[in-house]
C-alpha cells in the first residue's frame, strides 16, 4: 500500500489559523517544565546545596588555611573554594535535565508531544533551550550568592577574593555557565538513552565515577583524563588557580562545549530516526 490518504470530509468552516512557531514550542516546554514538582525540588536542591555546601566548605577550608603547607597556601583559591558546593549541586541539574526528556518516554507523554509537534528537532531544541535558560538563571544566582557567602566566611581566616580581582568575575559567572552546559548535556543524554534510570546512572558515571576511577590510575593515564575529561575541563572556568595537568579556563570550557555538541548531534539524529 503506498500513499494512503485521509481527507477531511465536508467544508471546513473553522477560523483560519496560524502555523505553529518555535516560540509556541518554547512556551509549551516552559509550561511542561514548571508544571511538574521535580523541577521545583531539583532547583531547590541546586540552590541550597550550592550555597550551603559552599559555605560549609569555605568555612572549613578557611580554618584549615593556617595549618596548611606552603604548597597548599600557594594554590589557595578562595573563589574556587566558595564555588565548590556547585560541583555537587550539578547532580540535581543533571538528574532534572535527564528527567525532562526521559520521563516523557517512561510515561508515554513523548508520543503526545511528538503528535503536537511532529518536527522532532523543534521539540528537542525548545526543551534544551528552556532548560538551559532556567539553569543559567538559577546557576548564576546560586554562584553569586555562594561566592559572596563563601568570601564572607573566609575573610579574617584566610586571604579572600573580591569580584574585582583578576579572573574572579569570570570564575563566578563561569560556574553558572558550566552548569548550563551540563544542563544541555543531560537533556541530550536523556534523549539518547530514554530510560530515566539508565540516563541518570550515565550522568553520575560521567560526572563522578569515571573521573574518580581516573584518580586511581598511573600518572601517564590520569593526567590526560584530568586534563581533557569534558566535565572537569568545563569546571576550569570556575577556578582562578590553574593546577598542573588542567586546561586554561576558556579552552577547558571549549572542550566541554565540544563534547556537549557531539552528544547533542547524536541525540538529534536518534530522535529523528527512531520510532517514538
Amino acid at each position: 500500500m503506498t500513499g494512503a490518504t485521509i481527507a477531511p470530509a465536508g467544508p471546513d468552516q473553522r477560523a483560519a489559523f496560524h502555523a505553529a512557531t518555535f516560540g509556541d514550542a518554547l512556551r509549551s516546554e516552559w509550561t511542561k517544565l514548571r508544571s511538574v514538582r521535580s523541577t521545583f525540588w531539583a532547583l531547590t536542591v541546586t540552590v541550597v546545596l550550592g550555597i550551603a555546601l559552599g559555605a560549609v566548605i569555605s568555612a572549613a577550608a578557611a580554618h584549615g588555611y593556617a595549618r596548611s603547607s606552603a604548597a597548599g597556601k600557594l594554590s589557595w583559591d578562595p573563589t574556587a573554594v566558595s564555588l565548590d558546593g556547585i560541583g555537587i549541586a550539578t547532580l540535581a541539574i543533571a538528574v532534572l535535565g535527564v528527567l525532562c526528556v526521559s520521563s516523557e518516554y517512561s510515561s508515554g507523554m513523548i508520543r503526545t508531544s511528538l503528535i503536537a509537534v511532529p518536527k522532532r528537532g523543534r521539540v528537542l531544541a525548545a526543551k534544551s533551550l528552556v532548560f538551559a535558560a532556567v539553569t543559567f538563571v538559577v546557576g548564576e544566582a546560586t554562584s553569586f550568592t555562594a561566592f559572596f557567602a563563601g568570601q564572607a566566611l573566609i575573610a579574617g581566616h584566610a586571604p579572600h577574593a573580591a569580584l574585582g580581582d583578576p579572573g574572579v568575575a569570570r570564575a563566578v559567572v563561569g560556574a553558572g555557565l558550566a552548569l548550563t552546559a551540563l544542563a544541555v548535556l543531560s537533556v541530550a543524554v536523556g534523549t539518547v538513552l530514554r530510560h530515566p534510570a539508565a540516563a541518570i546512572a550515565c550522568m553520575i558515571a560521567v560526572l563522578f565515577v569515571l573521573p574518580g576511577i581516573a584518580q586511581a590510575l598511573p600518572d601517564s593515564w590520569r593526567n590526560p583524563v584530568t586534563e581533557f575529561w569534558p566535565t572537569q575541563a568545563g569546571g576550569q572556568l570556575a577556578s582562578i588557580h590553574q593546577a598542573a595537568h588542567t586546561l586554561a579556563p576558556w579552552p577547558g570550557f571549549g572542550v566541554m562545549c565540544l563534547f556537549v555538541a557531539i552528544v547533542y548531534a547524536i541525540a538529534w539524529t536518534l530522535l529523528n530516526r527512531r520510532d517514538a
Partner: protein
Amino acid sequence: MILGLDAPTQGSVTVGGRRYRDLPAPMREVGALLEAKAVHGGRRARDHLLCLAQSNGIARRRVDEVLGIVGLEGVARRRAKGFSVGMGQRLGIAAALLGDPAVLIFDEPVNGLDPDGIHWVRTLMRELAAEGRTVPVSSHLMSEMALTADHLLVIGKGRLIADTSVDEFVRSSSQQSVHVRSPQAAELAARGREAGATVRAGTGPDVIDITGMDSAEVGRLAAAHGLTLFELTPVRASLEEAFMELTRDSVEYQAAGVTR
C-alpha cells in the same frame, strides 16, 4: 504511522495531501487519541492540555472549553497519575479536541471503560462525525464497531481485506439463516431440503435453522404445504461472525485444535 510516530517500511501517508510532519499546525487539522495514558502523571490535567495547546498556538480559553466538553472541569487541577482509566481517556480526548480538527483519530477508544464511559465515547464519536468531521476509529471490539461505525476497513496481516460499509460487509461475507419453530419441524425440514436449502437441527425438537432461503421463502414453503409456524426469524450474522469468516485465513496466530 499516520502521525509520523513510526516509520513505515514502505509507502507514505498524507493527511489532506500533506505529510503529517509538514502540517503547519498539526493539532488544528488532526486530533488523535492514542493509548489512554500518554500523559506525564505528575502534571495537572489543565497544565497537560495547556502545554499541548501552546505548542500549536491554540488560545488558553480553548483548554477550559475542552475540559468542559469531556466533563473534567472538576479535576482540572488534579495530577494525572490519580486518574482512572475513564478519566485518562477523557483527558486524551480533550487533547485531541484542542485544535478543533476536521480529522479525529481514535485508537481503541473504549478499552477498559465502564458502560457509561463506552456509551459516552460512542455518542461523542457519532456527534463528531455528524458535524462533518472524519473520525477514523481502530478497534478489536466488533460489537462496538457494529454500533459505531459507518464505514469499515478490515486489515489483517498488514493487508487491507475489506473496504466497505458495515451493512454491506455483514451482508456480503456471511450466510443468512432463518430460525424456525414449528410443531411440524421435521416435515418442514424435509420440504426445505427438497427445495435445495440446508437445514440444521436447532436447540429443541421443534426448532430448525435453515440456510439458503430467506424468511419469505420459508414462509411461502410452509403455507404451500399447510405447515404451522410458531416462529420465523431471519438471523443476521453479527459483525463479529462476518469478521471471523472473512479473516479466517489471515489471522496471524491461530489457536490450534479449535474448530469453527
